[in-house]
């Protein structure tokens, strides 16, 4: 089955009709000739990959609009700006950072300068530089947020654990201490964690806990917490309890409880009693409300 070719470009030249007549004749007599011919003929039937030029250019124009928003500055407005700058004085020298913060039991929804939408879950914080936004879409996140990103230039979410970046898509990012979780609802999302880079497609999710990586697939259209409910997929009880604490401004005490066991399910945000029942009843854990003291969790 091996052919002995005179050199390493023989077949390339054959394809380009650059061989001499003798070379061609000799080649046609070899065993492999028919297969080579067939490969070439069949590959001629392959169609070009699909690419919609018009649509792609429209998308490009849209993202350009976003970055093109810089207003035209006339000369006199420089004067105005200068006098304002003097008045504002030292404050103008400090880069102004916009901070959005939700407290325990609170959620917050707002738009970024380019119209991208953010929903902030309880006890979370987002900060970014509004002035630099048109040049670089970058923000810092502590806690959990759901993003609906308008198409455009690269959009990056920095967290203490790792970075998430996209061009335009919907995703949920959750980062606290040693916990980092990203769910992709639309488009594709790039997640950088330590030295690991992961690409998520719609319906993919990944989670890092104390450097252990877990990935799974899900079917919801948007995070349940934006609809008054928190849902968990095979999550250690420790994290579920923390989520309860964040949503209801409560605290727990544990007796005889293994916080490493995993919980799959959900709890509502507007009824503490029901929320406690739906988490702990299926786990076989009892709870006791004790007024202002932390709620006691125990197992007999």
């Amino acid at each position, binding site marked *: 089955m091996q052919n002995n070719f005179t050199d390493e*470009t023989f077949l390339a030249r054959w394809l380009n009709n650059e061989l001499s007549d003798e070379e061609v004749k000799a080649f046609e007599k070899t*065993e492999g000739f028919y297969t080579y011919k067939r490969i070439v003929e069949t*590959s001629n039937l392959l169609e070009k990959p699909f690419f919609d030029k018009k649509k792609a250019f429209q998308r490009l124009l849209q993202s350009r609009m976003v970055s093109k928003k810089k207003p035209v500055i006339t000369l006199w407005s420089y004067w105005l700006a200068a006098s304002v700058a003097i008045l504002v004085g030292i404050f103008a020298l400090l880069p102004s950072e916009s901070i959005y913060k939700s407290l325990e039991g609170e959620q917050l929804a707002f738009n970024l300068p380019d119209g991208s939408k953010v929903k902030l879950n309880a006890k979370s914080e987002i900060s970014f530089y509004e002035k630099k936004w048109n040049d670089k879409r970058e923000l810092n996140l502590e806690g959990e947020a759901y993003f609906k990103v308008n198409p455009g230039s690269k959009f990056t979410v920095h967290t203490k654990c790792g970075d998430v970046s996209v061009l335009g898509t919907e995703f949920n990012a959750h980062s606290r201490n040693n916990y980092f979780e990203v769910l992709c609802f639309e488009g594709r999302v790039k997640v950088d964690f330590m030295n690991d880079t992961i690409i998520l497609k719609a319906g993919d999710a990944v989670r890092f806990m104390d450097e252990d990586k877990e990935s799974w697939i899900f079917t919801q259209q948007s995070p349940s917490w934006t609809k008054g409910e928190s849902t968990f997929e095979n999550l250690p009880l420790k994290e579920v309890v923390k989520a309860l604490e964040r949503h209801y401004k409560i605290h727990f005490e544990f007796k005889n409880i293994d916080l490493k066991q995993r919980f799959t399910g959900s709890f509502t945000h507007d009824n503490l009693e029901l929320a406690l029942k739906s988490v702990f009843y299926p786990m076989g854990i009892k709870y006791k409300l004790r007024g202002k003291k932390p709620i006691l969790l125990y197992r007999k």
Partner: protein
Amino acid sequence: MEELDKTNTNLSLCKTKVFEKVFNLHAPLLHNFIYYKCGDSDVSEDIVQEAFIKLWENCKKVLFLKAKSFVYTVAKNLFLNHVSHQKVKLKYHQEIPDELNIESPEYIMEESEFRVILNDAIADLPEKQRVVFMLNRIDKKTYAEIAVMMDVSVKAIEKRMHQALVILREKLGDV
């Protein structure tokens, strides 16, 4: 394409009309080029987008004639940053030519079977060989044109094409 390059060397890329022309000229082939590398049309589309956004951002600095090499360089870098070398899965829409209808049923079966196997074998080719093979067979690019795109000599492209065919034959076996 060459005509446009020669006649309008001083055009500013910042003009939307010019930019659109440059986009229409280079984006499709750039898309295919990246697609042959990764086999994922979403990824290749995003990379093309990002490369042209970079071009737009630098429209004052980049000369009209350099636009092509600019977007190719950016796209190649983006691709390198991006890929954590997932297994390539190329999906092709294939035309079924009319002449095949004349053939006997067994022949059609055999032919389509051969295509499926060839498809898989192409997807399994090493990246460099696959890109050369596809650009030549599908986009009908000459070895010289591919050499410019990939920043290597024409000789290197010929070698890759040769290797691609040898590997494909090994995979397919003689029929």
